């Protein structure tokens, strides 16, 4: 388990801290999502975990041992896959992998084993001799990921790893990342794409303005916020019902109502019937992460 305890961080000359008293319990299995808009503090937190920044306040430990000590003992145990294409465009895929494996201090035969594994995992076999500068955006992302896997890391930090890729490559990357916990790698995944987080993460923390707004299992977060009912009526929704269910008008005679749970639907239908409302259409569903985030921050994830 990765324990982040009371961590704060303020950049030099910044008026406000980038992270304020962050505490998270990140399980050793599964993919953990860090969700938040640009500037929320996700990359700062990832940089702290990767050792690029040092927290003045708070503790970070992995399985009870300080993360910095673990990193010093074996830098390959904690790997960072940054947002940028952090490799050498003039080198081929195999040359890049060979270089980064060497930079981790790997020696033959382990070096070759790790390179083969990374190539196979990221499905780069067909383009292994191609120079990185001639790769498509999707293949570049796969190479970026493959480099991160070279040291068989215990903790893999993925900072927005799908930015700028086509849907097919994104699908491949998400599948590949979702499969990583089965190989014994703990994954922390940051994104401002809520559908990505929803697709591969079991636990999520929503961060904004350097603070954790919400943390927990994805299902619990979505369930805890109740159900959503979209209604299309023949006449306006009576005021009393609208107030009771925090209804919002989303079109002509179309409303979005917040229900405490799906079990509350029969009672609402009874109330509508009693008020003489004719229901033309209805759609019952859960909140998605985007809506949860909006409710928490009054802002969109892409703001």
């Amino acid at each position, binding site marked *: 388990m990765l324990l982040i305890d009371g961590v704060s961080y303020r*950049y*030099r000359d910044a008026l406000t801290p980038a992270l304020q008293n962050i505490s998270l319990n990140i399980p050793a299995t599964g993919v953990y999502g860090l969700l938040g808009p640009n500037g929320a503090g996700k990359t700062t937190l990832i940089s702290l975990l*990767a*050792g*690029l*920044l*040092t927290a003045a306040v708070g503790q970070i430990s992995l399985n009870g041992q300080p993360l910095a000590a673990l*990193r*010093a003992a074996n*830098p*390959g145990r*904690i*790997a*960072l896959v*940054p*947002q*940028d*294409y*952090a*490799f*050498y*465009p*003039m*080198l081929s895929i195999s*040359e890049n992998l*060979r*270089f*980064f*494996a*060497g*930079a*981790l*201090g*790997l*020696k033959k035969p382990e*070096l070759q084993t790790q390179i083969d594994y990374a190539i196979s995992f990221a499905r780069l076999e067909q383009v292994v001799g191609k*120079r990185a500068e001639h790769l498509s955006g999707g293949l570049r992302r796969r190479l970026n990921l493959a*480099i991160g896997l070279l*040291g068989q890391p215990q903790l893999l930090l993925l900072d927005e790893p799908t930015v700028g890729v086509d849907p097919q490559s994104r699908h491949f990357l998400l599948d590949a990342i979702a499969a990583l916990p089965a190989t014994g790698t703990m994954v922390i995944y940051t994104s401002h794409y809520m559908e990505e987080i929803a697709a591969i993460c079991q636990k999520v923390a929503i961060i904004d303005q350097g603070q954790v707004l919400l943390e927990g299992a994805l299902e619990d977060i979505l369930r805890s916020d109740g159900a959503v009912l979209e209604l299309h009526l023949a006449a306006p929704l009576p005021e009393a019902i609208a107030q009771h269910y925090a209804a919002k008008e989303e079109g002509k005679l179309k409303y979005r109502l917040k229900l405490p749970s799906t079990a509350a639907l029969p009672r609402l239908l009874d109330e509508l019937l009693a008020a003489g409302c004719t229901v033309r259409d209805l759609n019952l569903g859960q909140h998605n992460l985007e809506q949860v985030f909006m409710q928490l921050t009054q802002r969109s994830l892409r703001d």
Partner: protein
Amino acid sequence: MSPRLLALWLKETIALLRDRHGLMALFIMPIIFILVMTMALRDAFTPGTTIDVAFVVVDLDQSAHSKSLIKRLDKAAAFHRNTGDNDPEAARQGILAGQLSLALILPKGFGERLLKPTGAEGQPTAPLQLLIDPTLSPALQLAFRSQVMAALGALRADELTQRAGKLFGLPTAAGSSEKDWPDEIRSSAVRNDLSAKLPSSVQQNVPAWLIFAMFFVVIPVSSIFIIERQQGTLQRLRAMGLPFRLILAGKLLPFFVVNQLQAVTMVLVGIFLVPLFGGEALEIPASLPLLLNWWAVSAAVSLAAVAWALLIASLAKTTEQATIIGGVGNVLMGAIGGIMVPKFVMPAVMQKLAAFSPMAWGLDGFHSVMLRHGSFADILPSLARLLVFATLTLSLAIWLNHRALVARS
């Protein structure tokens, strides 16, 4: 051998081999400069070579003395005399048309008045007149003037000797004034032994352009370094636990090796290629201690060049900036350091400025070994300056990167 350092060296080598522009700047550019500049400056380094400047003598006197003066000027052979109309106006037109650079006009009565002081007997003496192409360099104008004055002095001395002989009734050998006298001044280079040849154009230009090319590692070093910084590769390497000093060490050795390959290539060009173009072959010291001294200078220049390149790479934000700052910096260091123009043709102020150019320190070191066959003690001042420069620039590069890191945190 550390696998991390080995990986860094290998990466840097592959990246450089793929950088065609960088390789051209490092190898092709200096070869072209060596060939062109060796040919262009060949005469400037060869004592006694005929200067390609034409002159005419307009002999209005037509006396034995005026003819004798012309013969003496022909013997000097430094400038070449054209024959033409014996007319001052034709000579003036020849200069205006660019066919001539100089015209010496010997006035009527030149021979008669050869030994009479100016203004003697109340008669003003017509001076010798020298017409000059204004584009001719002042040094050459002065050289021609000196040559005429020397010929005139010798002519007067002979005339005086002959008259004195007659006065005392001594026998006079016919035509003695036109005898070929042995050269009265012989040039010899001062060095520790006398086996080496005189300094030549190729010995100026090969080390000069080699040094210039070595400093051009700034182009490939900075282009790779800036890519690493901009694309987050340096951060990734830091996250992998690679200290910055190791990353710098990973750059130092490959480019040091590249610099030494440049040195070998340029020496081979000087030995084998320059003679094919009509130049003199480069002569490299034959003894092992001198070769080691030569290599020590080459190594010190290389360390200074790579450290300078790392400083530029740390200062510049983009590869374009690095190319401009590095390129202009190199050209300035070359211009004041005696690379493009030999130091001895510079004015005194510029020669003093050269003392501030690392390229001049390198060139002094090479010349000390190649021309003066200097010992290690002789090249030590050059080595010390270059190594201090390398240490300072490298320290500054490390400090700039550290400062940038702190600013980002």
